[in-house]
């Protein structure tokens, strides 16, 4: 904790960043994002297992951008989100600084190449509870899986907390907000919910950094992160690419190769 606060203080004092976006203790045992703009405030920064929000989500927020160059407190998923955003041309080299966290150490990273090296050395496996949940879903028959998602997705009331918490959901106008034509039904009826969540899972295919922030954000505890994590794992297995590992990565669903398997086309 002290190492993190020290790095943050130094980044502000040395004018490497104007704002540190990090985690602080919130209310009722919850963690809260904090925007530290003065060295004295750095003592509020903390880091623990309850920090599940992906802070990279704030990079695109206009009010946050106005604060000046940010330094992100970055556990692995935040770092991967930064690299994925870079690969999608949403941020440029030098736009931000990262205070990468691993094993209680803090590493200041400013170059994308440094971030790539850091990520390459860090294991990217899923949390065991998510891995187990995905395996449970894989073992189900298609009917059982249909039933499972039917009961989960029917509960959704479309508050879009999943989208709001996702650093890769940065579209200035989401498909659900396009109404000429209306692609996805707006109301939170079962069809509208299915179309929304399946569309989101497909749009995140090959782009999801598997942080789980969408599922954590859901006020109704719908494990929506399992959909995008499963698709991401499939893409990794089938195409060998993994989101948020490299800046110059080929996106599995938007790059064509002549040797691509086409046996799925009927």
């Amino acid at each position, binding site marked *: 904790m002290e190492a993190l606060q020290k790095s943050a203080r130094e980044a502000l004092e040395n004018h490497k960043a104007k704002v540190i976006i990090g985690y602080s203790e919130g209310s*009722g045992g*919850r963690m*809260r994002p904090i*925007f530290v703009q003065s060295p004295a405030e750095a003592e509020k920064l903390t880091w623990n297992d309850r920090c599940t929000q992906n802070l990279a989500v704030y990079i695109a927020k206009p009010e946050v951008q106005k604060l000046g160059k940010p330094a992100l407190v970055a556990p692995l998923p935040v770092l991967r989100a930064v690299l994925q955003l870079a690969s999608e041309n949403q941020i440029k080299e030098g736009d931000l600084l990262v205070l990468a966290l691993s094993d209680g150490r803090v590493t200041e990273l400013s170059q994308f190449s440094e971030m790539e090296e850091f990520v390459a050395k860090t294991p990217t496996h899923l949390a065991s509870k998510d891995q187990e949940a995905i395996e449970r879903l894989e073992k189900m028959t298609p009917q059982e899986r249909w039933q499972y998602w039917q009961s989960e997705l029917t509960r959704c009331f479309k508050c879009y*907390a999943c989208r709001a918490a996702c650093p890769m959901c940065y579209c200035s106008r989401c498909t659900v907000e396009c109404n000429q034509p209306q692609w996805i039904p707006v109301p939170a009826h079962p069809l509208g919910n299915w179309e929304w969540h399946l569309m989101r899972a497909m749009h995140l295919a090959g782009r999801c950094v598997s942080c789980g922030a969408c599922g954590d*954000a859901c006020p109704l505890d719908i494990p929506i992160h399992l959909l995008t994590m499963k698709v991401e794992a499939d893409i990794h297995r089938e195409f060998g690419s993994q989101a948020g590992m490299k800046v110059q990565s080929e996106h599995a669903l938007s790059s064509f190769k002549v040797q691509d398997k086409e046996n799925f086309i009927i």
Partner: protein
Amino acid sequence: MQKRSIRRAQINVLLEKLLSLHQVIYAPQKLGNQVDFAPLRDLQDLTLDHIQTVRSAKAALFPPVEELLRYQRAGVETELQDRDLTNLAEQVLFGTRPCDAAAIAPLSAVFTTDDQDAIFARRLERTTVISVSCERSDGDCFCTSVGVGPGDSRGSDLLLTRLQDDEYLAEILTAKGEALLQLAPELFGPEPAESKEAHLAKVQKRFDWEALHDKLAGAFDHPFWLRTALACLGCGACAYVCPVCSCFDIQDEGSQKKGRRLRSWDSCGLALFTLHASGHNPRSIQSQRWRQRMMHKFSYMPDQLQQLGCVGCGRCSRACPADMNLIEQVENFLFA
């Protein structure tokens, strides 16, 4: 108002009786790791030892999606078919907290001031509210700061307060409450000797809502909003768990020939909410949307409807993925 007593087991008998009369009972139940309102099918599922449900009981009166009308082209004319309200079921909200019951008044004010919303009014007419007072509260509860209390009877037809292990005080508050008593008078005992006050949760008053209301009147351009809304992600979680938030969208589904018009929940926290067809958005950044939420609840609603838009249930604070705690936001604003 009359006071009687009822035992926990007899409450179940009363609920079974209501179920046998084909009444829909919305009641708190354990769903996964959460406690939430849902239609009660089995009394085993009922839980009363929670502090607060994730969602409010609002959906029973103002569903997330509901049909308003159907349309059909007939030659050059369009035939409209209003919603048939005769088949709306009699329903019981059971286990609502006093804050949930207190939220019915501001919700009704939105739907029945000036124009009567026929669907809402009919649904309310067919709803009986059996609340259970709070024995416990948590750090997110602030009902006493907004003029509600853990044993408040407003909005309830019958209010139950646990006195001993399985003995409850039953306050019969309205004609609908009286009808419940008449349905099964043998289930109720005489008025208990004890009063309820000693058994209610102690909810600390955290702020003075009148001071908040007065300060908001001149705070539209206050720098506070920009600073404090930095963390706000711009979702609708707070609005959708709120027992009072009542904004909605109207959507037509179907074809040019036939279809239906639906009303579905909407939230001022979402960017699309105020986006004009021209592309202009009068609330273009999140701090303006957060300000709208605070203003609507604590300034506009009291001024226009003589109702506060908040009952202090604390659900917004519990649901927020960025921990935008309402009590703290208000306290910080009052000191800003």
